C-alpha cells in the first residue's frame, strides 16, 4: 500500500481537555504526582499565594484609587468622597458631642491618640462608608452581563462592608467636618462649643477587570490601597454663607489615618476522592492558599482568615464542608500571619 495509514487516535487527552472534562481528577492527579512537594495545576505549591502588584493613585477624578493585580485577578478601586450635611442626617445628631473636646485634626496626627474612640456606631448608623462592587462584562464566564448583581457579588459587598465596620479601619474623626464658632451665641463669656456640621461619605467602588479566583482578597487589597492614598480637601463651615465649603489648596488636604492593617487570606479545601470506592481510605485533603477560578470551581469548602498587626485575628469565615477543624484552622491562621508581612511590604512600597 502506497498511502500511509493515518496515525491512530491518541489514547490520552491533551491537558486543557482533561481539565475541562474532569476537573476534579485533573487537580487530584497534579497534587498526587509528587508526594514530597505536591504541585497544583497552576504550578504553585498548596501553601503558595500569588504575587501582588499594587498601583495606587491611578484614577485622576477620585479622591483615592488603586489598581491591584494578583495573578490574573485585576481590580480597580476608586474612593469618591461626598459631603453629608448635618441637617440631612436622619435622627438626632448625638454623635457630634463626642468630638467637642477634640482639637482640630490637623494638629492631632498622632496615630494612637484616639485609637480607642468607639466610633463604629457612628460610621455604621450614618452609613459613611458605602462599598460597591461590579464585575465587568467578560471578567469571568460566570458573570452574565446586563443582569442585576449576582448573589455572589452581593455576598462580596456584604462581606467587605462587614469587614470595614468590624475592623474599624476608617476613623469617624477623619470624616467629620466640625466647626467652632468665634463667639458663643448663647453666652459670650464661655468658650464656644465645637459642633459637627457635616460628614464626608466615602463611596468605595470596586470594579473587577478580570476575575480569576479569590475575589475577596483582591477587592480588599484594592480598597486598602485606595483608602491609604485617599486625600480629602480641607472642608470648613462658612458662617456667612452658612454652608460647607472646600479649600482649593492641595497642601491643606488631609489623608485618612487607617487603623491597623487587616489582611485577609482565603483558602480552598480540595477533598480528594479515593480512586477505588471500596478501599475508601485513600482520600486525602489539601488546603490550597489563594485559589484561582479553576480551583474554586472544584473546591467546596472555603476558609477566610483576616489577620491584623501583631497577629491578632479579626475575622474567620469558614463554610461549605467539615475538613478544616481546629488543627486545620491553626495552620490557616499561621499561613495568614505569614501572608500579613507580604501585604505590609507591598502596601508600604506602593
Amino acid at each position, binding site marked *: 500500500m502506497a498511502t500511509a495509514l493515518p496515525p491512530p487516535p491518541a489514547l490520552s487527552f491533551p491537558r486543557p481537555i482533561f481539565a475541562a472534562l474532569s476537573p476534579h481528577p485533573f487537580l487530584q492527579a497534579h497534587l498526587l504526582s509528587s508526594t514530597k512537594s505536591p504541585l497544583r495545576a497552576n504550578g504553585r505549591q498548596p501553601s503558595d499565594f500569588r504575587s501582588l502588584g499594587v498601583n495606587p493613585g491611578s484614577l485622576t477624578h477620585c479622591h483615592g484609587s488603586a489598581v491591584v493585580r494578583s495573578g490574573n485577578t485585576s481590580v480597580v478601586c476608586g474612593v469618591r468622597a461626598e459631603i453629608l450635611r448635618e441637617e440631612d442626617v436622619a435622627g438626632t445628631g448625638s454623635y457630634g458631642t463626642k468630638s467637642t473636646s477634640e482639637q482640630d485634626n490637623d494638629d492631632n496626627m498622632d496615630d494612637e491618640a484616639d485609637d480607642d474612640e*468607639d466610633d*463604629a*456606631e457612628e460610621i455604621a448608623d450614618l452609613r459613611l462608608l458605602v462599598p460597591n462592587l461590579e464585575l465587568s462584562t467578560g471578567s469571568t464566564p460566570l458573570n452574565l452581563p446586563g443582569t442585576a448583581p449576582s*448573589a*455572589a457579588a*452581593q*455576598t462580596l*459587598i*456584604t*462581606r467587605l*462592608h*462587614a469587614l470595614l465596620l*468590624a475592623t474599624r479601619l476608617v476613623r469617624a474623626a477623619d470624616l467629620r467636618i466640625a466647626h467652632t464658632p468665634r463667639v458663643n451665641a448663647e453666652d459670650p463669656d464661655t468658650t464656644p462649643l465645637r459642633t459637627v456640621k457635616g460628614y464626608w461619605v466615602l463611596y468605595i467602588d470596586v470594579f473587577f477587570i478580570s476575575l480569576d479566583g479569590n475575589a475577596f482578597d483582591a477587592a480588599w487589597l484594592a480598597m486598602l490601597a485606595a483608602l491609604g492614598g485617599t486625600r480629602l480637601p480641607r472642608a470648613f463651615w462658612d458662617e456667612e454663607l452658612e454652608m460647607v465649603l472646600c479649600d482649593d489648596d492641595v497642601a491643606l488636604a488631609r489623608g485618612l489615618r487607617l487603623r491597623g492593617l487587616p489582611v485577609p487570606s482565603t483558602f480552598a479545601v480540595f477533598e480528594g476522592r479515593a480512586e477505588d470506592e471500596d478501599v475508601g481510605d485513600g482520600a486525602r485533603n489539601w488546603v490550597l492558599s489563594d485559589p484561582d477560578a479553576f480551583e474554586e470551581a472544584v473546591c*467546596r*469548602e*472555603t476558609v477566610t482568615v483576616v489577620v*491584623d498587626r501583631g*497577629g*491578632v*485575628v*479579626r*475575622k*474567620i*469565615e*469558614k*463554610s*461549605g*464542608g*467539615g*475538613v*478544616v*477543624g*481546629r488543627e486545620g*484552622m*491553626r495552620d490557616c*491562621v499561621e499561613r495568614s500571619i505569614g501572608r500579613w508581612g507580604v501585604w505590609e511590604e507591598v502596601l508600604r512600597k506602593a
Partner: protein
Amino acid sequence: MAPGAILSHLHRADGSATYTHNGYSIIGAVNGPVEVLRRDEMPEEATVEVNIRPAFGVGGPKERHLESLLHSTLRSIILTRSIPRTLVQITLQVSSLPEEEASTRVNSSLTLLPHLLHTSLLALLSASIPLSTTLTSALIAVPAHKSDPKLAVPLLSPTAANLLRAAPIQSTHVFAFSGDRRLLLNESEGAFSYEEWEEACEMAEESCCKEGGGGVDIGEGMEVDGQQGNLEAWLREVVRRKVGEEQRWRVAT
C-alpha cells in the same frame, strides 16, 4: 431555655418547621425533590436553593450573604448525589426578632445565623430529604474585659438582653457542627487570638455535640437547673417526637 420546635405544620409544603429560641422565631418550608429549571439542573446532583425573607422589608445583600452561607453548609450535608437533577427549595421567613436586637451592636447576621441553620435542618428533616448527617449550631460572644482579657467569660448562646448587658463585646463566633463532630461552619468577628478562638470552639462543640459514649436518653432531664440543654440531645428529642407522631397508627390504643 431549650429551643422550641414545631414540625410539619404547613400542609402545602413538603416539609416545614417553626423554630423559636431566645425571642427569635423563624418559619421554614422545604419543597423537594421537585423539578428543577433547565438552567440550574446539574446532571449528577441536586440543586439546593435557599431563600431568606427578613422580618421586615425585602431581602437585600445581607440576606444574600446568609443565603450563600446556608447554601454551602446545607449542600454539604444533603445527599445531593442520591437525588440528581432535582431541586430542593428551602424558604425561611424570619417572623420575629427580640426587641433588643437592634441595640446590641453585634453584627445581626451572626446572631441570626444559628437559628436559621436549625430551622432549615428541622424543615429538611420534616420533608424527609436524605441527609448525610445532622447539624447543630451555637453562638458564642466574648465580652471585652478591660484589665485582663483572659478573665473574660465567653457567653454561650446569649439572648439579646444578655448581649446588651455584657457590652462591649470583644468578639462573636458562630459555630456549626455536624453529627460526627466536624466543624461545618464558622463565622467569627472581632479581635481575638487563635487560643481564644479555640476555647470558644471547644465551648460550642461541648454544647452542640453529645457527650462521648452517649446514647442515654436524657430527653426529660436535659433542663436540670434551667441549664442549657445539649443541642444534640434536643435534636434527638425533636426527632423522637416526630417519629412517634408518625408511628401513631401502629401503636395499639
